[in-house]
């Protein structure tokens, strides 16, 4: 079974600075998808960024970028120019790349990001 680990329960960053959240995963598969989600106090899960394992290029979405290291099974999220609105829980998630019943996601334990003004 796949497992996803986020080793940082909480991270603090100064406004306008950069913070990096770590995520490692365990899988025997070569084809899969990785996701980062943001959950603000409203509790609504919001997709931040997605990475396909077959793509070597790291995904980028505005101030959010990932460092995908397939051999190391590592998928870190970098938030640049942090804003107060970035304060939230962040979850890393894994989905296998072959179609299976349900196409479920496996989540890490989450990292709370605090942004200091």
């Amino acid at each position, binding site marked *: 079974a796949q497992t*996803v680990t986020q080793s940082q329960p909480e991270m603090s960053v100064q406004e306008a600075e950069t913070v990096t959240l770590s995520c490692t995963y365990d899988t025997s598969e070569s084809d899969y*998808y990785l996701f980062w*989600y943001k959950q603000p106090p409203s509790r609504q899960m919001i997709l931040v960024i997605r990475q*396909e394992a077959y793509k070597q290029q790291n995904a980028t979405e505005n101030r959010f970028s990932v460092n995908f290291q397939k051999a190391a099974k590592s998928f870190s999220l970098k938030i640049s120019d942090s804003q107060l609105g970035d304060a939230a829980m962040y979850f890393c*998630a894994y989905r*296998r790349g072959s179609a299976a*019943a*349900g196409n479920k996601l496996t989540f890490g334990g989450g990292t709370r990001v605090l942004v200091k003004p």
Partner: protein
Amino acid sequence: DVKVTQSSRYLVKRTGEKVFLECVQDMDHENMFWYRQDPGLGLRLIYFSYDVKMKEKGDIPEGYSVSREKKERFSLILESASTNQTSMYLCASSDQVLARSPNFGPGTRLTVT
């Protein structure tokens, strides 16, 4: 815009009560999921359904059951609520495109006293 709605944002129930959590999606998605969210543990899959009347156990199905009589609706049932089921419950739905993220509901915070 895909909408996943959950019947309650907050719910307080007594130990031993039968509890129904309802989830409805409006995008004709095949797959629906119930997750439980606890601090430090992230989201853990309770049950999922990939078609009407089809269901599969997730990682923590004990104490729960589900029902999917119509494609748009997926219900989570706590047959006899216990205090250790106090948690946040998130519903999600997805189509068959693996690269596409599921859509999540707003969550139900359930307290069992």
